[in-house]
């Protein structure tokens, strides 16, 4: 099928043969660089926090602990991941649909607003004017520029999503593809739809809060704020889930030649995400008094389990597609011969498969149990909750996105990685560290250790308080895991930056095989 590219603004990929819109390529590169900068800021904050929650080290003073925690949450949960996701949308909408990017002006607006908003938020937090944590629960009040910065990022991301929808519209109008869109594009569309819900809630909650911080609105009801804010805060992580699953399908194809087992089943699972995954925001309100048990149980159990079913479907179909591909290549010895023969030295594959295992077993199981009202009563605001979401967002999404970068840099930056042996080790180091850290968090939380707490020993308290040696052991595990995962993160950033700026050019030739 002919594309709708403008003359001189498309090239054929030297490795895959797919068309690459040069406008889209420019913005994918810009968003990838911006994402890695935010990842670096969030990563430095992460190791400072890990070394503070490790009681034997207890690095930061109290005020800096909460400041750095705010910085960490914003950069890791919002800025890094949303920035890369916009790049993924541009890639899916153009290369996979053989289309041009709908609007470079919108793409510039998206990049400018997200970059300016992210930078502004980081400055405001670092000068001590936004010590309200990522959730910024009212009546805690930050500087108005803090809220403005979040609004800028949200509006920028929404413009990027609109540009994606405009791109798939012109691709369909110009008939640049036949039949249904590829599965990866379908997953990206699901992520974009979830993003619309998320960003609309962001606008509904952040604009009045911004006006409140300016003194133009008298009061914000805390119950109302929490309800709407979590429509932004948790739903933004559901964009990650959808984008991550799309990346799993993409990396399964790139690394093993796998093809989706059943298009209808895989697409139905994405539709379950579209319809039901965002109501999982109710998990955060399971101990709130303002909403009824009926509302809580419907939104976190009955309807939500359809989204859980979707994750279980993807959790089986993705590895099954790899199994079929490996068996077709002749690796059919025994039950797991295909798995043993998988390309484990390819960091794109190892990152994707470890991401799948950590997300599915660690993040998925903890998420479903913690989302049950009875268990949540025990676990709410303990370290079990960060233990869960570090396995979904860090061990799952961030690790999958790292695996994607091992293909993004050679294919779209057209540069090869240095020190490929270290690149092969990096996903294992990061995955091992995150798993260790998250298990430390989860078990310490099971002993009752609270989250978002600077000193769980209550040093200097009149009455003896704190936790016993078992909890301290688990906080030590958390600290060791934080060090290991930070080393993995630093290695990833170092390798990626070195490749982008000094890597050998592969223009005119296929990328070097992993």
């Amino acid at each position, binding site marked *: 099928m002919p594309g709708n590219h403008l003359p001189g603004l498309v090239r054929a990929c030297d490795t895959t043969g797919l068309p690459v819109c040069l406008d889209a390529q420019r913005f994918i590169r810009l968003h990838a660089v911006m994402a890695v900068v935010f990842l670096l800021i969030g990563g430095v904050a992460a190791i400072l926090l890990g070394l503070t929650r490790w009681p034997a080290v207890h690095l930061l003073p109290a005020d800096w602990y909460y400041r750095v925690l705010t910085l960490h949450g914003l950069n890791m949960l919002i800025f890094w991941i949303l920035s890369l996701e916009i790049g993924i949308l541009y890639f899916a909408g153009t290369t996979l649909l053989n289309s041009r990017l709908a609007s470079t002006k919108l793409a510039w607006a998206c990049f400018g607003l997200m970059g300016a908003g992210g930078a502004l938020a980081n400055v405001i937090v670092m000068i001590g004017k936004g010590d309200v944590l990522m959730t910024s629960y009212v009546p805690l009040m930050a500087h108005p520029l803090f809220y403005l910065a979040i609004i800028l990022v949200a509006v920028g991301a929404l413009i990027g999503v609109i540009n994606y*929808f405009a791109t*798939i519209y012109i691709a369909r109008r110009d008939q640049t593809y036949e039949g*249904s*869109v590829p599965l990866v594009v*379908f997953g990206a*569309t*699901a992520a974009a*739809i*979830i993003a*619309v*819900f998320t960003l*609309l*809630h962001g606008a509904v909650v952040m604009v009045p809060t911004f006006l409140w911080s300016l003194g133009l609105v008298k009061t914000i*009801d805390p*119950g*109302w704020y929490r*309800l*709407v804010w979590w*429509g932004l805060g948790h*739903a933004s992580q559901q964009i990650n889930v959808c984008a991550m699953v799309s990346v799993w399908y993409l990396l399964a194809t790139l690394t093993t030649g796998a093809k989706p087992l059943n298009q*209808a089943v895989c*697409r*139905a699972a994405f*539709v379950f995400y*579209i*319809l*039901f*995954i*965002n*109501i999982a*925001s*109710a998990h955060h*309100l399971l101990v709130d008094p*303002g*909403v*009824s048990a009926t*509302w809580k149980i*419907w*939104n976190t159990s009955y*309807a939500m389990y359809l989204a859980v079913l979707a994750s279980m479907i993807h959790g089986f179909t993705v590895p099954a597609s790899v199994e079929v591909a490996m068996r077709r290549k002749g690796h059919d010895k025994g039950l797991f011969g295909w798995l043993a023969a998988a390309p484990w030295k390819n960091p794109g594959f190892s990152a994707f498969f470890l991401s799948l295992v950590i997300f599915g077993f660690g993040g998925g199981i903890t998420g479903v149990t913690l989302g049950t009202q009875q268990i949540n009563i025990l676990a709410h605001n303990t370290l079990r909750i960060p233990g869960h979401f570090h396995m979904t967002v860090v061990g799952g999404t961030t690790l999958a996105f790292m695996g994607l970068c091992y293909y993004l840099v050679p294919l779209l930056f057209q540069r090869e990685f240095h020190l490929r042996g270290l690149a092969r080790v990096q996903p294992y180091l990061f995955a091992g560290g995150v798993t260790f850290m998250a298990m430390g968090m989860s078990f310490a939380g099971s002993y009752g250790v609270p989250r978002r707490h600077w000193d769980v020993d209550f040093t200097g308290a009149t009455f003896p308080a704190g936790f016993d040696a078992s909890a301290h052991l688990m906080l030590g595990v958390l600290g060791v895991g934080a060090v290991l995962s930070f080393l993995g993160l630093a290695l990833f950033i170092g390798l990626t930056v070195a490749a982008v700026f000094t890597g050998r050019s592969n223009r005119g030739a296929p990328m070097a095989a992993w």
Partner: protein
Amino acid sequence: MTEPRKPHPIERLFDNPWLLLVLGVVVPTLSYTVWGWIELALMPEARLP
């Protein structure tokens, strides 16, 4: 000459990103946000002891 295959209604839904967009915003907004707002609005005011 064979007639072109008529897509199944679910396939037509899956191929319609605009309808999915509407459903993806409306369903969770009603189930989570609007229902939640109604419950908060109907909550009786607390009385001081």
